[in-house]
């Protein structure tokens, strides 16, 4: 059922409207569980679009298996999605820096607050992100160490390739996930793929994880999808590889592959001179889980991340 989460008037013949699709079980169930799937906080991250579709499609195929409420929010930042922009083109802000918002505040604060209020009461929330247009990521769950204890059991069920636990930067306290976790709604941040793209196999992988979680919560009586246990890492087991010069980056390895210490994983080239400016070498062995896609680079740009020591 399509429901309006909130609606605000805009100056010239339009409104700022956010919808959710609330899918109810066919059978009458006392105190049904509830899961919320949120996508599109950053408008350039589109991987969640397919996940929202596929979750709704599988439920529609077998509504008899559904024993809880599934709320799907495909586009919580609709203007950003339609403009392919990370930030909200209306407010010029990162929506994920405005939570938990304020019901009596200005429009930005009210939008954030309305979203939080509508998710309250869920047993679990999944905040689906993609990478940006610059790097590609394997499906992963990002967990703040502050909430790791309560979230880790859910994260292990997501069928992601890895779980990355990191320390909370103060600025991250204004994210949707942090705000909901602080309010007692377990919320996982899922990150995968790349900006402006949808990679269907990753979407299917995470959708299997979502149904796995729903089985665990007693919300889905259909066959439990076969899933994997993600590798678990912390900041200390991730090698960041950055360039030190400006040029074009050409990778020499595949994304989502194991690399050996000392292996050349790419090079920085100069299109003017035909010179190789820098050879990019992995210092440690491990899984290359982040890889640069956008070739133009400047000193400091991220080229790759390697998950080390977690296997």
């Amino acid at each position, binding site marked *: 059922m399509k429901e309006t989460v909130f609606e605000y008037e805009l100056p010239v013949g339009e409104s700022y409207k956010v919808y959710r699709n609330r899918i109810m079980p066919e059978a009458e169930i006392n105190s049904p569980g509830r899961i919320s799937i949120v996508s599109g906080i950053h408008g350039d991250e589109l991987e969640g679009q397919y996940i929202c579709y596929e979750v709704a499609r599988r439920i529609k195929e077998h509504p008899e298996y559904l024993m809880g409420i599934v709320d799907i929010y495909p586009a919580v930042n609709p203007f950003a999605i339609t403009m392919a922009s990370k930030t909200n083109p209306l407010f010029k802000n990162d929506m994920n820096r405005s939570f938990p918002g304020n019901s009596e*505040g200005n429009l930005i604060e009210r939008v954030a607050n309305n979203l939080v209020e509508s998710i309250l009461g869920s047993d679990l929330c999944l905040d689906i992100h993609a990478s940006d247009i610059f790097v590609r990521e394997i499906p992963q769950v990002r967990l703040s160490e502050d909430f790791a204890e309560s979230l880790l059991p859910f994260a292990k069920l997501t069928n992601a390739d890895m779980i990355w636990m990191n320390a909370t930067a103060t600025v991250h306290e204004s994210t949707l996930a942090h705000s909901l976790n602080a309010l007692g709604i377990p919320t996982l941040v899922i990150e995968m793929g790349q900006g402006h793209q949808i990679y269907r196999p990753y979407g299917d992988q995470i959708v299997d994880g979502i149904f796995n979680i729903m089985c665990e919560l007693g919300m889905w009586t259909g066959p439990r999808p076969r899933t994997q246990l993600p590798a678990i890492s912390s900041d200390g087991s991730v090698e960041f590889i950055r360039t030190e010069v400006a040029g074009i980056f050409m990778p020499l390895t595949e994304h989502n592959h194991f690399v050996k210490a000392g292996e050349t994983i790419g090079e920085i080239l100069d299109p003017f001179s035909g010179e190789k400016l820098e050879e990019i070498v992995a210092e440690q062995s491990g899984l290359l889980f982040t890889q640069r896609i*956008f070739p133009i680079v400047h*000193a400091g740009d991220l080229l790759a991340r390697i998950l080390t020591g977690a296997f």
Partner: protein
Amino acid sequence: MQSVDLYTYKSIYRTELTVKGYVFGTGQKTACIVGPTRGNEYQQLYICSQLVKKLQELEKLGVIANDKQIMVIPCINHYAFNLTKDFFGVKDQDLNFYFPGNDSGEPISRMTGELFNQIKEYSYMIQFSSFYERAECVPHVRMIENGSENVSLANLFGLPYVVVRKPVPTDTATLNYNLQTEENSAFTIYTKAREKLDDKCMKNAISGVLRFLTRMGVMKYECHAGYISHVLHEEDLADVFAQRAGIFKPIVEVGEDVKYGAKMAEILDPFDGTVREEIVASTDGIVFFAHNTPLIDQYETAFRMIHRLHE
């Protein structure tokens, strides 16, 4: 005056972005004045350029105290100005959300990290900034409340108001906040205009800086004593939100003393011209902040008022 290169960002296809500091006097690094971080802060750029010009004249007159050094950084985001963008680079990042930076991090963090290390050597930092909202405000000095802020020092600018703000998570990545954390004295000056050049406002801003430097013994310059600043806490400002969206026609201006119930603005239907809303003053007081573009959204902040303060 000496010109020093503080940081050079090398782009693959654009001219190097070299952040320059203009240094006056010699000896102790006493005061650093920092210009705009966003590419739409034209007035702030204008003020800093005129301040450099004024300090050059004053230095020749020998008014800068012995063993005191002043540095002005008129701009740190040339690329954004030249493209009429607000933020930095292809990722459209807000420089003022990347302090204290990281010398081995991503490109923007390397820039802010290097600048931060050089700015923090100065005991006092004065930054020219502006609101993110489409608005203008009465001139004021802004400080973050972190327990070590010194409001008495902020009074020495002789501007009409000093505003003390309780930090929110996103403030923790700003230049001002991080300098105060390092126990420097950090002040942010907000002037009335941003995207229009305003000579009166520029002169007032420069007078404020010179007054502060004189009172701190950095220079000897005879100038008007200015105001005995009225100290406000941001949470005490009364917000007046637009209840409807449409064409915004203000009736009052920033700095104006209005009475409770007075008409402050009209919001008009953009298609038939009828009045959708008359915004009236919710309190007696001075208009501190006023929306200043022709269109307004529902629940956008139309005005902020200093409750029960009169001219």
